[in-house]
Structure formats: structure tokens, C-alpha cells
């Protein structure tokens, strides 16, 4: 191997100017080809219905930046409305994503489907809010406040309306949004290190 490399090196030394030009040209050409291919290929994001496993991983990892959250297993309430098809579909998706006693970010996660009125009955501090619950946002925020629940969703409208504490998105980039009002109402305190790195809304 070393002898082979030495031979190559000797040849290259003998022809340095040409090699330099060739290496630079190949490098540049390679970059252009790859970039052109990229531009030609529309980078359409693979559409996920509502929530992905990666979204839940991001959320569970973010929980470790909340003061007072103990390490170990947690239960997540999946808040849905049985009268809204999208909400039911999403809740089922989530049940499919999180199997029985699944592990996320070194935590054992279990889920329980609940309606807004049933929030907090499972003594859980975390609730995933499905899409389509716009009309129930006031009741949702009140329940979260009563039971000191960290509500999160992939529906950023819920966060923007100050009804959910945290919005998460994992593709194409990890994106976290926190509602200060909702967090304060539920007594949720994030570390400032995280707050400095995410988008906050009222």
C-alpha cells in the first residue's frame, strides 16, 4: 500500500502543475454536477399526515429541558375529539407510532387516548394535542392549567393561540416553538439554554 502510494506521489510530484489543475477542475466539476442534480430534483418533503415518530422523539427530548421533570417513564395523554375525523386519524397514528411501553430518548413512553374533558385524569403531566381542536382551545387551555400539564402538538396554531405550551417539527429541520403564556399558566419552566435556542411566542 505504502509503496503504491509512494509511486503515485512520485508521479504527482513530477506532474504537479497539471495535477493541481486537474484536481481543482474535478473538485469544481463534482460540486457543480451534484448541485445541478440537486436543483433538478425537486426536494419535495415527504408529506407526513400529522405526526411522525421523529416529532415525538424531539418532544420527549425537549422534556428534559423542563425543570422538575423526573427521569424515567412518562405517560402521554393523546387529546382528540371523536367527532373530528382528522383528530381521530392522528390519534390512531400516534398510537401506532408509540407501541406499548416504547422507548424514546431513554424514556419509556405509554400513551392514553383522552378527550379534552378527560385531560389530567390519567395523572399525566404531558398531553399531545391532535389537529382540528380549534374550537376546544379555551377548554383545552383551562384543563392544562388546572392539571399543570405540558401540552404539545405538531399543530403550531395551537401554540400561536397560546393553548399549547410547545410546538414541535422534525423535518426538514428541528423546529420548536414555545408559548410563554401557556407555559406560565401550566407552571412549566424551561431552561433558558433551550429558550435561547427556540422561537418563543406570547
Amino acid at each position, binding site marked *: *500500500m*505504502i509503496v503504491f*502510494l*509512494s509511486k*503515485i*506521489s*512520485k508521479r*504527482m*510530484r513530477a506532474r*504537479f502543475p497539471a*495535477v*493541481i489543475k486537474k*484536481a*481543482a477542475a474535478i*473538485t*469544481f466539476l*463534482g*460540486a457543480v454536477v*451534484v*448541485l445541478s*442534480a*440537486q436543483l433538478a*430534483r425537486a*426536494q419535495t*418533503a415527504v408529506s407526513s399526515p400529522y405526526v411522525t415518530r421523529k416529532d415525538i422523539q*424531539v418532544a420527549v*427530548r*425537549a422534556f*428534559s*429541558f423542563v*425543570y*422538575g*421533570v*423526573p427521569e424515567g417513564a412518562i405517560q402521554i395523554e393523546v387529546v382528540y375529539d371523536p367527532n373530528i375525523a382528522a383528530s381521530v386519524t392522528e390519534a390512531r397514528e400516534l398510537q401506532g407510532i408509540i407501541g406499548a411501553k416504547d422507548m424514546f*430518548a431513554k424514556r419509556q413512553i405509554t400513551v392514553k387516548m383522552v378527550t379534552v374533558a378527560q385531560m389530567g385524569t390519567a395523572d399525566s403531566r404531558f398531553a399531545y394535542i391532535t389537529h382540528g381542536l380549534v374550537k376546544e382551545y379555551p377548554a383545552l387551555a383551562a384543563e392544562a392549567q388546572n392539571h399543570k400539564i405540558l401540552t404539545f402538538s405538531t399543530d403550531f396554531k395551537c401554540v400561536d393561540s397560546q393553548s399549547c405550551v410547545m410546538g414541535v417539527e*422534525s423535518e*426538514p*429541520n*428541528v423546529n420548536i416553538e414555545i408559548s*410563554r403564556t401557556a407555559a406560565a399558566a401550566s407552571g412549566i419552566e424551561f*431552561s*433558558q*439554554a*433551550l*429558550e*435561547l*435556542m427556540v*422561537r*418563543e*411566542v*406570547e
Partner: protein
Amino acid sequence: MKRVFFRYPLSFVVLAMALLCAPLQARAQTINYGSLETLFGEPVTTSATGKPQRVSDAPVDMYIITQDDIRRSGAKNIPEILRGVPGVSVLQSGRNDYDVGIRGYNQSYSPNLLVLVNGRQVYLDDYGYTDWALIPVQLSEIRQIEVVEGPNTALFGFNAATGVINIVTMNPLYDDVSHASVSFGTGSYREASLVKTFQVNKRFALRISGGASKSNDFGHNVNPAEPAGIVVSPEDHALNIDGIYQLTPKSQLRIEASNSGAYQTEMTAFNFQTQARYVTYSLKTDYEADTDFGLVKAMVYRNWLDGNYAQDIYSTAATSDISNNVSVMQLADTFKAGLSNTFRVQGEYRHGAVSGTIVGAAGSSMQEDVYALSGMWGWDINRNWELTNSVRLDRLHMGHSGPIDASDTLLTDASFDRTIVEPSYNSGLVWKATPIDSFRLNSGRGLRMASLLDFGVSFRSGATIGAAPAVPVLQIGNPNLNPTIVTSYELGWNHKIKAIKGLFNADVFTEKMMDAMKPGGPIVACPAGCGAKPFSNNFVIQPQNVGWSRTYGAEFNLQGKFDEHWRWDVNDTVQRIYDHYTDATANTKDATPVNLTNLHLGWSSGPWESDAFVYFNTRFKQPQPTANAAAAVPMVTIPAHVSFSGRVAYTFGDHLTLSLSGQSLQSVRSVTSTGLETERRVFVSLDSNF
């Protein structure tokens, strides 16, 4: 402290037990690099603006080398790891003698790059450079190496003139590391390293590390004028202890202490070699708290350096000694005001002093005191636009105490009574044009302060002028040196490419370097006034500001992964410097390679890992002095060179890895500087994660 301990030993034991047995509580979430990186799917840094942010959000040109990159590089030291970073040039003058520059202007005793470990400066203030062999860190305990390109004085202070490298180690409270390694190689290379973290309980953790290496140096000197016995077998060692205590759920106290030492032949700032022996110590305390008024960080540290130099090209018989210490106190607060404004305010005090046989007569010392105030304002204009501005004002006052060397008739203590006040700034605008594209426009004003010895060296060197009777040269400092000011403008583009699971980034930049410094100006006959003292026939060499220089450059970097097993990257840096120096012997244009190209291809599958690296440097020139100090120092061409390095590793089970790695594999030896010819080196390493 010692007295108190012996007077109240029981109190200390009780306190220690209380600390160790404290009840478990949730940990403070200051900056947990590992968790934040896992959360955001990319490395996180505080080295760009002082606030924690993802590397893709940083308003500067920045690269982060991860522990995975370090392990797979097969490198045995940090400069070898840095070789692959776009814009970084690595000058190797011996087996353990490296100089690193960012965006050109690299030279022996490279002064423009500030290097830190966990925020503590390891840049040496005596001569103003970084001795990489003295950094008290084992490669396996590094979490990430953060490379910031361009001036960043507004955050880090003096000497972050063309870039900053911050080495972030594992945090024993969050990271579990138990790693031991031994390596053997050609050139009688042998190395041992141990890193162990102890999580005593949820509130208290320790990291202890140590390592040493020794080998033969390279055997062939490029400069025929260097004395035959100048080359020694380089050796180095490092010890480090790092303890973190969770005071409350929202605050941590961290204490780090280190010792390192090295003995080596090294290239000096004057481009001749010397035998150098160093010992360093450091003690650092950090306090971090998540408070109602922001993330507060207080840091106090002190560095000690003792150096001894023997032999040089002028056949100086006597050895010279220096002793340098630096004490730094910093207090910073980072907080959000409203939803979209982040502020950071910092105050800093620094005291540095150097003494020894090259600072005048016995008992003399050169000191400086620096007071600095800085602020950062980050504004999230909307979801897609962010503006970050940083400003800093430094006030340096220097002084000399003790008798000036009897032969130094030009300077008195009063000559050093000088105050320098300089502002610096960084401003960056980031536009996230699409979810996969971001553009950066930034500007900065950085400062390189003259080193303590640039200001205050006073030394009769062995250099001689003319034929017999030889006349010695007096090397004296120049207290009137102005700081070098680097002003930069830069435009950058980052583009994520999903098809190759990778990233393309490009940067174009220009930097203007005002009041550039040359360590030794022209040797001149002793000016008027010398006659007042005995050595009236001395010649004098003094560092000088030599005018200005401008550089234009571009960097391109493309990296990706495929087939789950392969990863690759290719980068290219093109740079051109235009000098406008008043001293015709100053030449940074020819000393900077016009083109640097790096290629990497890596493969892994099951227990196997294999990585190959190619580094290409176009030709450049370096000064090559002769034994006659009066003769003009010629610039010698270092030919363009390609260097191959690589590593193949196999992991047995989960714990034991056997690897074969090599550097400069392309030839038995090659000319990479005017120092020692770089030789091919091959290593066999056994690593255990126990």
C-alpha cells in the same frame, strides 16, 4: 487554604460528605452540549456569539469537529485533526511542532488564532502563539472542536484576530467516558492515554485524564544552517482533573486543574529552531446559573507557564528562561428581552506578566492589565431573518518593573508606561431563505495585541554581525507597537442536500490587516543614545508595525453520506494576499498557499471503520535564516505537496478497538516547511472503552 484544612479537618470531611451524599435533584440545564445536539440533530455552540445556538444558525463561518470525526481521523494530535477544515492551514515543522492559521497569514509561532479549552485561553501570552503539544486534553475526552473563521475579538478579546478554536471537553455530569489507549508506531512512537469520568451521584461528577507520548523527531533538517545537535526526541504529557458540582437545580460549580509539559525542537517566530522545554499549570473555576435575570456565568482562571530555551542557529551558548502567568476574571449574563431580542453583557479583567532572562536583568518583569466590557444584541427580526451585533471595548495598560538589561540603553521603565484603548465589533445578518438554504452577511473588527515579549523583550542574543570581532545583537521590545487590526467582510451560503444526506456551503471573504507586526524588524546599528552605556557598538533588532495587507478568498465545502456505510467530504480554499508593507523583508503574500484542497472518504460496517484523507497544498515560501544575522533572510519555496493519511479499525465486541493509522503516507519524507522534513509515520493503536 492548607492551614485552614489542617486546623479544621473534620469540617472539610463533613463538607465533602455532604456534597457527595446530597439528595438527588434534577440537574441544572445550563449548556448540555450532548443533549442539545441530540435534540436539534446538529452540534450546538456558544463560540459564535456567546449565546447557545445551532451551528447552522451561527452568523459566522464556523465548522464543528465532533468526537466521531476525531476518532475516525486516526490523528494523534489536534493540528492533524484540523487539517481537513476549510480555510485552515497547518504548518508542520517537526514531529510535534505545528502552527495553525485561519485564512492565511500562517507562520511559525502563529499569533492571529486564539485557542481555548472550555473557554480558558491556552494561547500563550509570552510570545503570543499556541503550542499545541501543551494543550492538556486527551483526544478521547473532546466533545467537539469549534472552529470560528474570521475575527471574533468582540466576544473573546485580543488575539481572536483571524479566528478562534474552542475545544469543548466532555462534561462529567452529562457524559460517561471510560477510555484507555496505547499506541506504538514508526519513529519509536509510543503513547498512552486514559480518560475516566466518575458520576459520584446525581450532583457531583469528576473527569480525570492523563496521557504522554514520546518518539524520535524527523531526521532531516531543510535548513542546512541549523546546528547538527538541535533536534531532540519530542515528548509531552498532560494531566487534567475536572469536577462539577450541582449546587442547586439551577446552578453548577465547575473546577478544572491541569498540568502539561513538553520537550521538543520547535521553530521560533524568527524561523530558526530552538530546543524548548515547557511546563504549564492551570486552575479554573466556573459558576453557571439559570437565574430570573438570565444565564449567568462567572469564570476565573490562572495559567502558569515556565519555558526554557537552549541552542539556536546563532550558536547561543546560554539558555534562556521565561515565566509567564495570566489571570482572567469574566462575568457574563445572557438573557432574552421580550420574545425576539437576546442580550449578552460581559465584563472582563485580565492580568498578564512575563519575567525571565529575556526580559531584562534579574527581577525584571513585563506586565499588562486589561479591562474590557462587551455586549451582544441578537434580534430575531422574523422567522427568516436574524441580526446579531457585538461590540467590545478593551483598555490595556502595560508596565515594566525592575532593571532594564544593562545593554539596553534605549528603554527605561517609563518607556513601557502606556495605555491602549481599542474597540472591536462583529455584526452578522442571517437569512433563512428556505428550510434548506441560509445566507450570511457579516463583518468584524478583530485585534491582535502585541505579545508581552513583543513589548518588553530585552535580551542580548548570540547573533553576531560581521566578521571578527563579532558584535552581539541586542533584541529589545517595542512598547510603541500598535495592535494589528483585522477588518473582515464575508458572504456565506449553506444549502442542505437531501439526496446526498449532506450539505454544501460556500463563503467569500475579504480581510484587511492594518498595522501588521513583524517579530524582528531590520537589524540596525544602535541609534543615538546607545553611547551612554557600555555596549555602544551593539546592533539592535526590534519588532515593528510594518504596514498593511489585504486578502481575498473563497471556501467551498461539500459533504454527504450514501448507502448507510459511506461518508465523504471535499473542500477547497482559494486565497490571495496583497501586501503593502513598509518593510521589504515582510512577506505574507508568498507565505500563504493560494489553494488548499482536502478530500475525505469514510466507510463503516459493523465492527469495521475505514477512512482516507488527502490534503493538498499549493507552494508557498518561508524565511530561511542563516547563521549570519546581518545577512538578508531569503524566502525559500516550499513546493506544492499532497499528503495522504488514513485509519482502518476493527472493534472486538463492544469495548476493544484495534486500529492502524498513518500520516504523510505518500512518501518517506517530504518538505512541508523550512523546519524538519515531514516523515511518513504509521501507528498501531489499541483503544478500550471500559
